[in-house]
C-alpha cells in the first residue's frame, strides 16, 4: 500500500469512527461543545500519528482514550480553581478523572449519531454554520478540510465553528433525545442541512479537485448514515434517493472546460446507471409508506427525468403532476417556476408564460434572474426570439454564477436573428 492510499484509508477510518466516539464522549460528559473540541483534537493527533506508528488495534478506543484525556486535562485546570471554592466539585472530579484505556470497547448507542445531527443542525444556527459543524462533528472532517471545501482560510472556518458551538451552548439544548413532538421538526432541520450541503457541493464543484473534500459525497455519506439510524422515515430515504438520482447526472452536466450543459442537452449515456437504479429502488421503498413529503416528490421528479433514455421521451405529464403536488406542499416560488416549465412542455409555451406572469406578483421571486432565464426559455420555445434574447441577457447580467452566466449569454446569442 502506498503512503498516499494509506493516508486515504486512515482518513476514511477516522471519518467513520468520529461520530461514534463523539457520541460516547458527549453522552458520558454531557457537554457537547467541550466533547467536540476534545474529539477533534484526538482526530488531528490520530491523523498525524497513525501513518507513522501504524493504526492501533482498536482505533475508536484509541481516539476515545485521547479525547477523554484531553477533556480531563481541560477540566483539571478548570476544576483546580473551582475545587478550592466548592467541595462538591471534588466528587464530580473523581468521575471525570477516569480515562478509559485505549483498548476499551466503546459503548456506542444507535441513536448517538442522530443526537449529534440534532445538535449540529439546531435551528438556532444559520445553514452555513450548521453545515460546517455537521461536517466536523458528525462527518469527522478536520477544520482545515472544511475550510478548503468552502474555499475560506482555516482561521475563518475555525471561528465559524466556534461561534456555532457558542450558539448551541447558550441555547442550553442538552445532549439528549428531543421530545416526540419536537423530534419531527428537528429531523426535518437535519434533512434541510444535508440537502443544502449536497447542493453546495453539486453546484460549486468545478472539475476534479482531489485536495478538496467533496461536499456532495459527504452529504450522501451522511444521508446513508442517517438512513441506517432511521430506516423507517420516508423523507430521509426520499432525500437520499434525490441525492443519488441527481448525482447520477454529475458527469454529464458540465463540459470539458466547466461549461454548464442543461438537462435536455446532456449525453445520457454518461449518466450513472447504478446510482439511478439505487435511487429508484430507495424511492420505491419509501413511497408506499404513505407519508409523502417534498424530498420524495423531488426524487420522483428526478427519477422521471433519469428514466427517459432520450430528452423527447421525458414524461412531462407526470412531472407536471408531481410539481403540482410539490407546489401545494411547499409554497416555494422556485417550485412554481419549474411547474411552469413542465406546463409549457405539456400544454404549450403560452400556458407556461401565463404562469410566469402570475409569478411577477410574488415578491419572493419577482426580478430574480431565474424568472428571466425561464421566461427567455419559454419565449424561445414560442418562437419569440427577440424577446427571449432580452430576457436571457437580463438573467445573464444578474446571476452571480459564472458557468450559468456563460450559458445564458450563449442562449441570448443563439436567439439573435440570422
Amino acid at each position, binding site marked *: 500500500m502506498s503512503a498516499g492510499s494509506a493516508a486515504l484509508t486512515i482518513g476514511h477510518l477516522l471519518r467513520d469512527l468520529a461520530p461514534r466516539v463523539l457520541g460516547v464522549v458527549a453522552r458520558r460528559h454531557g457537554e457537547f461543545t467541550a466533547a467536540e473540541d476534545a474529539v477533534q483534537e484526538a482526530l488531528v493527533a490520530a491523523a498525524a500519528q497513525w501513518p507513522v506508528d501504524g493504526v492501533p488495534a482498536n482505533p475508536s478506543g484509541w481516539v476515545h482514550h485521547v479525547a477523554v484525556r484531553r477533556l480531563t486535562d481541560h477540566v483539571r485546570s478548570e476544576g483546580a480553581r473551582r475545587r478550592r471554592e466548592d467541595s462538591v466539585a471534588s466528587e464530580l472530579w473523581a468521575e471525570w478523572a477516569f480515562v478509559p484505556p485505549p483498548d476499551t470497547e466503546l459503548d456506542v448507542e444507535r441513536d448517538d449519531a442522530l443526537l449529534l445531527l440534532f445538535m449540529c443542525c439546531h435551528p438556532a444556527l444559520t445553514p452555513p*454554520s450548521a453545515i460546517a459543524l455537521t461536517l466536523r462533528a458528525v462527518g469527522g472532517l478536520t477544520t482545515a478540510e472544511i475550510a478548503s471545501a468552502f474555499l*475560506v482560510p482555516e482561521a475563518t472556518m475555525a*471561528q465559524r465553528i466556534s461561534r456555532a458551538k457558542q450558539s448551541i451552548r447558550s441555547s442550553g439544548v442538552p445532549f439528549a433525545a428531543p421530545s416526540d413532538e419536537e423530534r419531527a421538526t428537528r429531523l426535518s432541520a437535519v434533512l434541510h442541512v444535508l440537502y443544502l450541503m449536497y*447542493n453546495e457541493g453539486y*453546484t*460549486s*464543484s468545478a472539475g476534479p479537485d482531489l485536495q478538496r473534500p467533496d461536499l456532495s459525497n459527504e452529504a450522501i455519506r451522511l444521508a446513508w448514515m442517517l438512513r441506517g439510524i432511521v430506516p423507517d422515515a420516508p423523507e430521509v430515504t426520499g432525500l437520499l434517493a434525490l441525492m443519488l438520482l441527481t448525482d447520477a447526472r454529475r458527469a454529464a452536466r458540465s463540459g470539458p472546460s466547466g461549461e454548464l450543459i442543461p438537462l435536455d442537452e446532456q449525453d445520457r449515456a454518461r449518466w450513472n446507471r447504478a446510482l439511478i437504479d439505487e435511487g429508484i429502488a430507495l424511492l420505491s421503498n419509501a413511497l408506499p409508506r404513505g407519508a409523502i413529503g417534498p424530498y420524495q416528490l423531488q426524487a420522483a421528479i428526478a427519477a422521471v427525468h433519469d428514466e427517459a433514455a432520450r430528452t423527447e421521451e421525458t414524461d412531462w405529464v407526470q412531472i407536471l403532476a408531481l410539481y403540482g403536488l410539490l407546489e401545494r406542499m411547499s409554497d416555494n416560488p*422556485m417550485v412554481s417556476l419549474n411547474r411552469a416549465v413542465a406546463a409549457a412542455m405539456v400544454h404549450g409555451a403560452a400556458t407556461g408564460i401565463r404562469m410566469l406572469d402570475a409569478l411577477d406578483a410574488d415578491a419572493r421571486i419577482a426580478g430574480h434572474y431565474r424568472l428571466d432565464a425561464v421566461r427567455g426559455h419559454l419565449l424561445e420555445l414560442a418562437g419569440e426570439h427577440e424577446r427571449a434574447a432580452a430576457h436571457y441577457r437580463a438573467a445573464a447580467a444578474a446571476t*452571480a*454564477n459564472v458557468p450559468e452566466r456563460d450559458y445564458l449569454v450563449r442562449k441570448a446569442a443563439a436567439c439573435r436573428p440570422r
Partner: protein
Amino acid sequence: MRYILMMHAPHGDGEYEILTSWTPEDLKAHLDYWHDLNRALIDSGEMVGVEALAPPGQAKLVRAGKDGMPAITDGPFPEMKEFLAGYWIVDVDRPERAYEIAARASAAPGPGGAPLFMPIEVRQVMRSPIVEM
C-alpha cells in the same frame, strides 16, 4: 455571498503619504485600525482574504508587444487620480453587511484621528452556489 471591497486612495506623487508625511502616532492609530478590523472579520468568520498593495510609484502597465513579449511602461501614472491601495474579500450573509464593513474601512483614521472617508468600491464576486429546486 462574497464581496470584494476595494479601497481607493488619491494617487499623490506615487508614494504612500502615510509613510512619508504622517506623524508616528497617526500612522500607529491608522495601522491599529486595520488590525482591529481584520481581527473582527476573522472572528466573525467572514474574512476570506485581505491584501495591501505596494505604492503606485512601483506600478507597471503591461501590454503584449507585437512578438507577444511583455511591453512594459513604468509608473507612476500621474494621469490616474486614484489607485487601488488594497482589498478585502469577505463572505457575508447579505449585501448590507458588506456595505457595513466597507463603511467601517472608509472611516479609517487619518491625520489627527479624523476619518479619511475613503471611497470603497464594493463588488460581488461571482462564483457557484446556486440552489436547485
